[in-house]
């Protein structure tokens, strides 16, 4: 017996697990595949669903979370395309990053039209962060300085050229009519190292995510010049203006969602869709989403399918414009 299985009856008797056991027709061995190592954003995406599905009792069985790192998600994508293309039990975690990689042709012959996109349930947003003693008070100050001397400001973030973190910096440069290739940009291993580099004044602007800087907001060591969201967020983020309201049309949501194999039956797809449609409205889910530093973002079924395809097309033209792909 696993510890978890051993304790489930005990938990049930305490009434901690929900009583409304809903029957989902075809889902008897639910599994979420995180196309990365444990601990990253994809793990979080899977666990967000696994934990809350268990809490709410929307699935009979606990959802397993497995890992398949490699090829920034391409290995899992290939695996789903090749081996488990009709598995009714399997959902795979995805995000803006997956759409971006598909657009940049990093998944080989695949372009994102192959799988069945199930839905997005949460999001994070990009942020433009500087030190509290930086000379720029607003995004506009930074943009003016950047325009004057594109080589005078060092950007940094946790991703290579072509990655999401870089895209944020590149889009900001573009909005300022500066060629992204003329920037100074340093890529680090993840947001933590980038933040350390910002605090140590090795870089001047960090294009990170809102969730990863939440803990820094109160400490007063950093200043967030802009959130790359469509509107202001609540709570601790209420004072952070969006780039849009400062006159620069840059948005970067990092949505978190799931896809399924291409030959999954409509019945199974619909069953998962029903489960997620119910899940996103539960209190348990809303709390869990908030606890993980994520914001509301719900696009399910066809709406999500269209959104992803539209994003991939958009990213493709962006990457061509920036000279990343031909």
């Amino acid at each position, binding site marked *: 017996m*696993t510890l*978890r299985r051993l304790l489930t009856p005990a938990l049930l008797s305490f009434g901690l697990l929900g009583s409304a056991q809903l029957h989902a027709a075809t889902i008897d061995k639910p599994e979420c595949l995180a196309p990365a190592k444990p601990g990253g954003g994809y793990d979080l995406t899977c666990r967000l669903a696994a934990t809350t599905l268990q809490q709410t009792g929307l699935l009979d069985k606990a959802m397993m979370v497995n890992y398949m790192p490699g090829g920034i998600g391409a290995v899992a994508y290939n695996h789903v395309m090749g*081996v488990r293309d009709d598995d009714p039990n399997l959902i795979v975690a995805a995000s803006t990053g997956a759409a971006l990689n598909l657009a940049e042709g990093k998944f080989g012959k695949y372009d994102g039209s192959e799988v069945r996109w199930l839905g997005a349930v949460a999001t994070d947003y990009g942020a433009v962060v500087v030190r509290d003693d930086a000379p720029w008070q607003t995004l506009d100050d930074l943009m003016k300085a950047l325009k004057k001397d594109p080589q005078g400001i060092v950007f940094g973030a946790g991703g290579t*050229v072509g990655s999401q973190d870089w895209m944020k910096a590149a889009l900001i440069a573009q909005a300022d009519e500066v060629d992204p290739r003329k920037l*100074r*940009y340093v890529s680090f291993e993840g947001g933590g190292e980038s933040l350390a580099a910002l605090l140590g004044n090795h870089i001047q602007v960090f294009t990170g995510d809102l969730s990863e800087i939440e803990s820094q907001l109160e400490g007063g060591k950093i200043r967030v010049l802009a959130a790359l969201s469509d509107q202001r967020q609540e709570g601790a983020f209420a004072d952070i203006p969006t780039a849009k309201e400062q006159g620069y049309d840059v948005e970067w949501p990092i949505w978190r969602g799931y896809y399924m194999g291409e030959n999954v039956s409509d019945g199974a797809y619909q069953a998962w869709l029903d489960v997620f449609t119910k899940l996103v409205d539960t209190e348990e889910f809303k709390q869990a989403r908030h606890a993980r530093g994520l914001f509301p973002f719900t696009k399910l079924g066809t709406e999500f399918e269209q959104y992803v395809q539209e994003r991939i097309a958009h990213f493709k033209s962006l990457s061509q414009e920036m000279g*990343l792909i031909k």
Partner: protein
Amino acid sequence: MTRLGDRLLGMILLVLAAVYAASTTQMEVPFSYDPLGPKGFPFVLAALLVVLAVVLLLRPALGEPWPRGVLLAKRGVLLAKVVAVLVVLTLYALAFSSLGYLLSSALAIFALAWLFNAGSLKALVCAVAMALGSYALFVYALDISLPVGQLFGGR
């Protein structure tokens, strides 16, 4: 290793350095923010390897020759066994997800134990006990998911 061994190694390393450098020149770089780019470091490494390989080719051999004394006589047996173990491990890998953890592991354990001179009965007992025991440890105590096997309805 013998002088011959070192020479052979030196040659292989030269080829490796050449392939590595050739593969480096093939990379297409859209643009890079640092002057070295993705190619700089590999070129330095290839050059270093060439220098080291040349030194290895020219210098007298060090160390003891291999295979040593007793083994020289049994060289054929050893080579056969090394290949056999590798074949077992490769088959084990291939069977891991299709036959499932329990069955593939039991077979692999039996084969390995037998190759290490366990005798058939001992190897059989070892295979059954270790496959079941490790499955219990990994799946029930440590909550690690292992392949059930396509034969048994898993994937």
